[in-house]
């Protein structure tokens, strides 16, 4: 019988009521008295010298309040990068300046040049057309390998080249890895592209800056996954506003997927401009603008090699990746192809030697940063594709080859620094074989073939590192921030609870799931608990939601704070019952004296805390409010096995997903309904990457996929129902809930199985010379491969 409340239950989401009735409060729904509107005039060339921005005619246009250019930001900081990677020679990465508005040069299509503030959006846009730009167009660098050749045009004139860093990991393993390859019985190699994607949360970014003249306080309303991080980055590094004079609010946010982690120029602009003109300033991105200003994701070009011994054991792995940074370093960009990618290259396998080389490259494109999975999908894709290719070359079953090389002993020290605490890869593969009905595949293939179609089955495993992460470790790796999380549990006098968390919900259902944890600990009804998030004025410093960290890190902080509440409440209860606090137990919302029938209700204790007439004032303070900061000792390591079945039309090259199955180990589960929803969404995005999506630039740096007319978002008819299972549970050993995180798994685990399935379908028709097709596997690409 499933539970109906507390940990493990699936109560309906409370946030749905406002979303389903049109009562959500998204940033674009916020309008402040006297607000002006800003439109950004953006570069329409990828690379050019900005000789002159003539705003004189535009300034006289109707409704224009003020026009800003790069000159107005001469005394203001640039957009900072939050992570410094050290290269294989021990040198820091090259880190270019990133002005709020372009200064001297424009470096990608969409680079903001001028900001027109006017009484209405329409007037701001009209005025933008009257600005006269003198831009001397320069040759653009788009292709990464061309960008790092000698003599390539430089994106940043003051850097030595377009190479941000050349990273080796683990550098000390390189010689031994190379040696192992010399002794291998078999080597499989594969070159592949992890296609550039646009995150595309359905809510475009919005920023509203406000300034209070009487208090000298600034407020920024913004579409962010981490308002405290924005306050720190923007306040300390860009505008020089101390935290106590700066409030950042991220209300309902319509999806993030990584791209709303970062601090963007438009946020800094609206905050800055509001202080200048002493009026609120609002910016709402159009979708077209989003395509050329939201940080993109992925965009890796890799070569991976796998060495096996004569018994098909993996003995060594090496990869070389070119990772696109775009024109500037977005907030976490340098960490994605390095620490979020290299550390996962061991995957689920006992490969004793791994060496990862990554060259991060500047190009005249939109900055690239974390997108759902961030580094881990790129690692998984390489690894799970090369294993599949190796199995075909060796003539062994790809599942058998994986099973043979699975890590089975935990904790497991990988050769790429991280230690997996728990996992059971055999169990998730067993579960996958069951839910994906592998035994029925042959009959399904036959049925497809009877219709003139090909059918393929592809499988992959994945491991990811979530709950990012121990602050002392990430500090050593170059993070310029800590990565703890905070929670304040405020018990009110009448017993209701407000929980202020640094985690941010933008679709994850925190307002429903977090109360389940606290209600379970206290034995009170979930409806008495409210989750407060998304406002730096309301809760303590927090690091926000990304990297599947909210429950593992933010939830753990809540547990710690609630434990403090319980300890204090027991002392109050002991006083009220004239007992020893060591004898007090909490059960079903009451405090009991063990071994007696004496009890006091939760509400009696909370009232006593705030009306301390009968209270141990000599021992403890009144009030019942506790804060905890939780900093984990390790990442968490969710894992799983995924299977995809495709049908392929050999006449057109069109691939359809017929079945998709996912068996995940997320550790303990708080709300199974929400967990399944997270996996569904991730799989949808992974299928999108595998079959449909791709941000495409032409050689001149024009973004060819600049709207939903050109960028193929997955629609309902592009995907099937998914079979998902998370009954394989190996609890995380180092956080109090035993949870691992589920937000990114679907997006990490799904692309390789789709591609593996298509290759399987092609091989079933004798097209065994096709060993790889780069994503997206559009009909055009598949047909071309078949008819090459």
């Amino acid at each position, binding site marked *: 019988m499933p539970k109906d409340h507390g940990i493990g239950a699936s109560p309906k989401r409370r946030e749905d009521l406002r979303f389903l009735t*049109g009562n959500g409060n998204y940033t674009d729904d916020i309008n402040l008295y006297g607000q002006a509107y800003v439109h950004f005039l953006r570069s329409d060339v990828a690379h050019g010298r900005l000789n002159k921005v003539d705003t004189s005619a535009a300034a006289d246009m109707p409704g224009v309040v003020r026009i800003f250019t790069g000159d107005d930001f001469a005394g203001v900081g640039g957009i900072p990068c939050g992570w410094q990677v050290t290269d294989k020679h021990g040198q820091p990465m090259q880190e270019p300046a990133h002005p709020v508005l372009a200064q001297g040069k424009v470096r990608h299509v969409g680079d903001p040049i001028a900001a027109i503030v006017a009484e209405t959006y329409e007037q701001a846009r009209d005025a933008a057309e009257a600005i006269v730009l003198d831009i001397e167009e320069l040759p653009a660098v788009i292709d990464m390998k061309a960008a790092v050749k000698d003599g390539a045009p430089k994106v940043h004139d003051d850097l030595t080249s377009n190479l941000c860093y050349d990273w080796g990991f683990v550098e000390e393993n390189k010689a031994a890895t190379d040696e192992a390859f010399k002794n291998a019985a078999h080597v499989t190699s594969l070159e592949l592209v992890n296609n550039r994607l646009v995150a595309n949360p359905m*809510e475009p970014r919005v920023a509203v800056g406000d300034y209070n003249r009487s208090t000298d306080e600034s407020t920024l309303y913004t579409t962010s996954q981490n308002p405290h991080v924005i306050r720190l980055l923007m306040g300390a590094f860009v505008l020089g506003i101390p935290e106590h004079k700066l409030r950042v609010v991220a209300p309902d946010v319509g999806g993030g997927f990584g791209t709303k982690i970062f601090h963007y120029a438009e946020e800094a602009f609206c905050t800055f401009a509001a202080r200048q003109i002493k009026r609120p300033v609002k910016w709402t991105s159009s979708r077209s603008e989003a395509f050329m200003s939201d940080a993109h994701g992925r965009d890796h070009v890799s070569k991976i090699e796998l060495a096996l011994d004569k018994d098909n054991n993996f003995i060594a792995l090496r990869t070389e990746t070119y990772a696109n940074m775009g024109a500037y370093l977005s907030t976490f960009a340098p960490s994605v192809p390095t620490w979020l990618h290299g550390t996962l290259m061991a995957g689920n396998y006992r490969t004793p030697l791994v060496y990862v080389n990554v060259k991060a490259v500047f190009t005249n494109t939109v900055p690239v940063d974390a997108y759902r999975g961030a580094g881990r999908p790129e690692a998984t894709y390489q690894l799970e594709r090369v294993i599949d290719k190796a199995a075909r070359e060796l003539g062994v079953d790809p599942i058998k080859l994986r099973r043979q090389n699975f890590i089975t002993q935990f904790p497991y020290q990988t050769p790429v620094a991280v230690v997996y605490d728990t996992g059971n890869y055999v169990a998730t593969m067993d579960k996958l074989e069951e839910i994906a009905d592998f035994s029925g595949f042959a009959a399904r293939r036959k049925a497809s073939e009877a219709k003139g179609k090909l059918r393929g089955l592809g499988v992959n495993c994945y491991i990811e590192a979530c709950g990012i992460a121990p602050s002392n470790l990430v500090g050593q790796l170059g993070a310029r921030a800590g990565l703890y999380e905070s929670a304040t549990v405020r018990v009110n006098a009448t017993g209701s609870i407000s929980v202020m968390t640094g985690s941010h919900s933008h679709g994850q259902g925190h307002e429903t799931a977090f109360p389940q944890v606290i209600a379970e600990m206290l034995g009170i009804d979930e409806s008495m608990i409210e989750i407060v998030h998304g406002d730096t004025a309301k809760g303590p410093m927090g690091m926000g939601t990304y990297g599947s960290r909210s429950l593992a890190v933010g939830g753990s902080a809540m547990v710690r704070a609630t434990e403090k509440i319980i300890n204090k409440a027991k002392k109050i209860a002991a006083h009220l019952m004239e007992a020893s606090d060591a004898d007090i137990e909490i059960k079903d919302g009451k405090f009991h004296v063990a071994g007696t029938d004496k009890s006091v209700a939760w509400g009696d204790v909370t009232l006593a805390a705030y009306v301390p007439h009968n209270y141990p004032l000599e021992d403890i303070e009144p009030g019942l409010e506790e804060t905890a900061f939780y900093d984990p000792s390790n990442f968490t390591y969710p894992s799983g096995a995924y299977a995809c079945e495709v049908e392929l039309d050999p006449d057109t090259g069109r691939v359809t997903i017929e079945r998709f199955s996912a068996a995940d180990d997320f550790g303990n589960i708080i709300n199974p309904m929400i967990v399944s929803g997270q996996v569904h969404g991730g799989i949808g995005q992974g299928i999108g990457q595998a079959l449909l999506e791709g941000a495409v630039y032409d050689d001149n740096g024009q973004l060819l996929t600049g709207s939903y007319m050109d960028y193929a978002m997955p629609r309902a008819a592009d995907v099937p129902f998914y079979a998902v299972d998370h009954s394989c549970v190996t609890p995380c050993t180092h956080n109090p809930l035993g949870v691992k995180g589920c937000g990114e798994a679907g997006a990490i685990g799904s692309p390789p199985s789709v591609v593996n399935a298509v290759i399987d379908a092609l091989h079933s028709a004798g097209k065994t010379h096709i060993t790889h097709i780069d994503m997206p596997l559009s009909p055009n690409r598949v047909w071309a491969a078949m008819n090459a």
Partner: protein
Amino acid sequence: MVKVNMTVNGKAASGDVEGRTLLVQFLRENLHLTGTHVGCDTSQCGACVVHVNGTAVKACSMLAAEAEGVEVLTIEGVANADGSLNTVQQAFQDHHGLQCGFCTPGMVMTATALLKENPNPTEAEIRDYLEGNICRCTGYHNIVKAIMAAAGQDVSRIAAE
């Protein structure tokens, strides 16, 4: 500026608009009905779907001035008279058919139009009908399931909650 008059969620509404003002802007900015969302600028995403004279319309693809005299129904106007969720809304909550909630108003309005046209749609018919509504969160699984449930179909056998 032109003056437009229409009925929105059963109430008379009017305002002065520029010729280029879109219906969705009029709803959001003049009438402060911010439940109707704008997710794109090419009429692809469907976050702005409302009903105009009973038909689903993308409110970004109609000028406010064109809406003179029409009846508009938005997400704010679809709940039961007592304020409780209607069948489609309730099915979306029951089956976790929404996550961030941004596409949701458009999804509910489109689903409502579908069920009016076709009270018992197949899975394939639902997926095809949602062609003009993009969701980035759910992978569509629970949206399709919710619409099937709203049509009164037994969805208990559909894979995993």
